[in-house]
């Protein structure tokens, strides 16, 4: 009887212990958690897409994630860093900002977290971007965007055959003669209004004067007052005059391309990065089909045939925790990079190992192909400049639109800032195949 009672008690204790161990093993946060800050919010639907990547990470590793999306990325991150409570991982759309944190010794090197990306996996530009101009690895490109492209509505006109800048200007003039407004243009993007104009000027400079001049300028070695830079601004002036510069100042960048899809169209050509595809569908009509309702052609080559400008959202590690290391490692894999493109489009991986089948349409496949096979890729200059310079550039764009006659004065002021910030510039050379 006593023996039976002891056995029952022993069994009970074993059951309790087993249950405790089982519970401990299956507790979701047993592997810890990682906090992530990025600029993707619910408002544009990108947060949901990125969270799919994070959920898969959680499923694969057991590590929980705490994600926060904010459009005030710079203010939010800088206040957290100053407060001594940065997120474990922040994903920034500007290398210039990231470089600032590197200079403040706030970033952890990823050399012992992931292996140096091998040449077969990436076109040369991307390892350059991920090293932030140093010898160590500091970032992982989570998604990239192709710039140097011009969008049009194939239902209105077939793909224009534009090889040179003059042909592009002539195309605008032809459209204007028929009573149409050739260019869709909007500069509003609080608190970084003006960046679409900065993109234009960068493209003109790159494609008219080649990668050498572009790299010199983007690394702070070519004065803003140089003839090449001034010419780029003036050429853009011909576009803005046709587009209606006052209207551009009073239009948000997300609204600019909308009139392309009205009947009759309010504008015909839209110079925007590849992420505009999501905006077209979110803002206008989710039934708009890539290839049928909108398509793109490359910015006229000029002196830089086969060259594209690019931008990227780069993940960097602010707290060196085992969970953060796991996530960085995960984000760099082809498996993780395929999730977002596959789940709704609008995002592109720069990893060659990501199967092209993940892209849902021909236009996306074409963009992806350019991102991994282009002859040369150059990182957007405004995104890699010191933040002060970048902001001044955007503000000068707005000032130029309001009064093009003050160009010389604006370029002088920009050059003064270039000299003052000389030591903070980041040199990211264009990458070739």
């Amino acid at each position, binding site marked *: 009887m006593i023996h039976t009672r002891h056995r029952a008690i022993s069994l009970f204790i074993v059951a309790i212990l087993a249950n405790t161990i089982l519970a401990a093993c299956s507790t979701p946060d047993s592997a810890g958690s990682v906090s992530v800050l990025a600029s993707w*919010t619910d*408002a*544009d639907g990108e947060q949901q897409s990125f969270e799919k990547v994070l959920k898969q990470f959680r499923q694969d590793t057991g590590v929980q994630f705490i994600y926060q999306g*904010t*459009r*005030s990325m710079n*203010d*939010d991150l*800088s*206040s*957290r860093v*100053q*407060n001594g*409570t940065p997120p474990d991982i922040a994903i920034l759309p500007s290398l210039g900002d990231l470089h600032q944190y590197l200079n403040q010794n706030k970033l952890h090197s990823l050399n012992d977290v992931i292996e140096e990306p091998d040449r077969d996996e990436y076109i040369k530009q991307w390892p350059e971007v991920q090293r932030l101009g140093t010898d160590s690895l500091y970032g992982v490109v989570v998604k990239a965007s192709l710039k140097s492209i011009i969008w049009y509505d194939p239902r209105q006109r077939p793909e224009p055959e534009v090889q040179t800048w003059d042909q592009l200007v002539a195309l605008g003039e032809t459209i204007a003669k028929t009573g149409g*407004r050739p260019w869709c243009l*909007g500069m*509003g993007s*609080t*608190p970084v*209004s003006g960046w679409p104009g900065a993109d234009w000027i960068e493209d003109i400079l790159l494609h008219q004067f080649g990668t050498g001049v572009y790299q010199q300028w983007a690394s702070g070695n070519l004065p803003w007052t140089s003839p090449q830079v001034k010419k780029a601004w003036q050429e853009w002036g011909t576009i803005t005059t046709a*587009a*209606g510069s*006052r*209207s*551009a*100042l*009073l*239009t*948000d960048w*997300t*609204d*600019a391309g*909308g009139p392309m899809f009205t009947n009759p169209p*309010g504008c015909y050509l839209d110079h925007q990065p590849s992420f505009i595809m999501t905006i077209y569908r979110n803002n206008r009509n989710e039934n708009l089909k890539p290839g049928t309702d909108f398509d793109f052609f490359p910015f006229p080559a000029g002196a830089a045939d086969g060259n594209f400008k690019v931008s990227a959202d780069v993940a960097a590690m602010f707290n060196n925790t085992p969970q953060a290391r796991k996530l960085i490692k995960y984000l760099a894999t082809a498996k993780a990079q395929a999730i977002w493109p596959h789940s709704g489009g609008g995002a592109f991986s720069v990893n060659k190992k990501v199967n092209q089948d993940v892209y849902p349409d021909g236009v996306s496949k074409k963009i992806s192909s350019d991102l991994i096979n282009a002859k040369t890729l150059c990182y957007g200059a405004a995104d890699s400049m010191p933040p002060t310079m970048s902001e001044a550039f955007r*503000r000068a764009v*707005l*000032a130029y639109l*309001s*009064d093009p006659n003050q160009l010389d004065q604006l370029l002088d002021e920009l050059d003064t800032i270039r000299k003052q910030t000389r030591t903070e510039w980041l040199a990211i050379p264009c990458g070739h195949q």
Partner: protein
Amino acid sequence: MANLVTSAATPPTTPKTTTGKTLWILCVLLLIATVVVGSTSWLVFQKVYGTVDTVRDTTAPAILDVIAARDALVQADSAAIDSFQSGEVTLSGPGLEYQNQLTSASQHLVQAAERSAAGNSSATSSGSQPIQLLEALLESYSSLIGQADAHTGTPLLGTTDLWSASHLLHAGDSPILTEFNNLMDDQTSALNDQVAASSMTTESLLQWVVPIVLIFALLVVTQVFLRRRFRRAINPWLLLATAALIGLSIVTSLAIASQHQLENSRDTLNEVVRLSRDQPSSADVRGQQELGELMEKECAGANGGCGPTVNKFVAEHKSTDNTTPEISDGRITTLNKGFDNSIMNAGENVNWKYFIPILTGLIFFVFIPFGLWPRIEEYRYRPR
């Protein structure tokens, strides 16, 4: 007396009679029950008034600071727009009112941050990081207004900057006012948790009431026992103990009344936050209408007009009599006064807490020993 107290604290040899044992047991039980009642009453009192102190000195001021900062910022925005609309900007920039209100907003945020640093409550510590974010956003906002001021010579650019600044405050994906609202939501959520933690649940009410009922029952049983055994009409010391116990219960009830006042304060503060968050102030409505007029003027002069976002804003902020939303200014002022009154009332009985140890001490050291010890002494060496 001293002898009695010492004797009560260090009991003599065990009584040898049943009556003596019963008296001894009743005495010990009464003393234990007194300690339990005194302790629970003290804990109830401390819990309620501790929360009243925290809410009055830290949590509520932090919330009111954030509300004041939000309100001042809205006033600053309206004043800056008014300055542009009236043309005063060419001579006086965004204006003195703008400067004053912006300074006020900044100061209130600094005060809220200081309370966060000083306070240990979750209501304040959780607000530290968002406050720093708001301070950074305030800098971005004032920088845009500064740009607008610098561009007064080119009205289009000035208006565009003004639009960007006001847009940063009111609209977009993460506007500053939404960040304020999120912070206020976090703060009120923490306030509600604090007040809920000190409120009387059924469990805590039972923990307080049951010992009181038990000690009352024990006192009655003891009186009845003494009346039967010793033919005494009533034991005056135990009667005094009963009166002291009633006093103790009344004093503790004051804490329950204060908790009720505290809950009223919480409700009032929640209402102030709700109105501040959901109802635009008259200054805000006027400012946005004036910005709409400025933008409409610029759109009319632009070849190609404005984009849908601006057009929608202009349409939504046309100044028509029938679309003016409910103005919350006066209501908030009234509620603020109501909050001040109720939190003052909640804290006014705090000094009664000293009666708890006094009454407990009297019952424990005087009334019960004096009431029972002479009878215990009588039966100490005597068989029944």
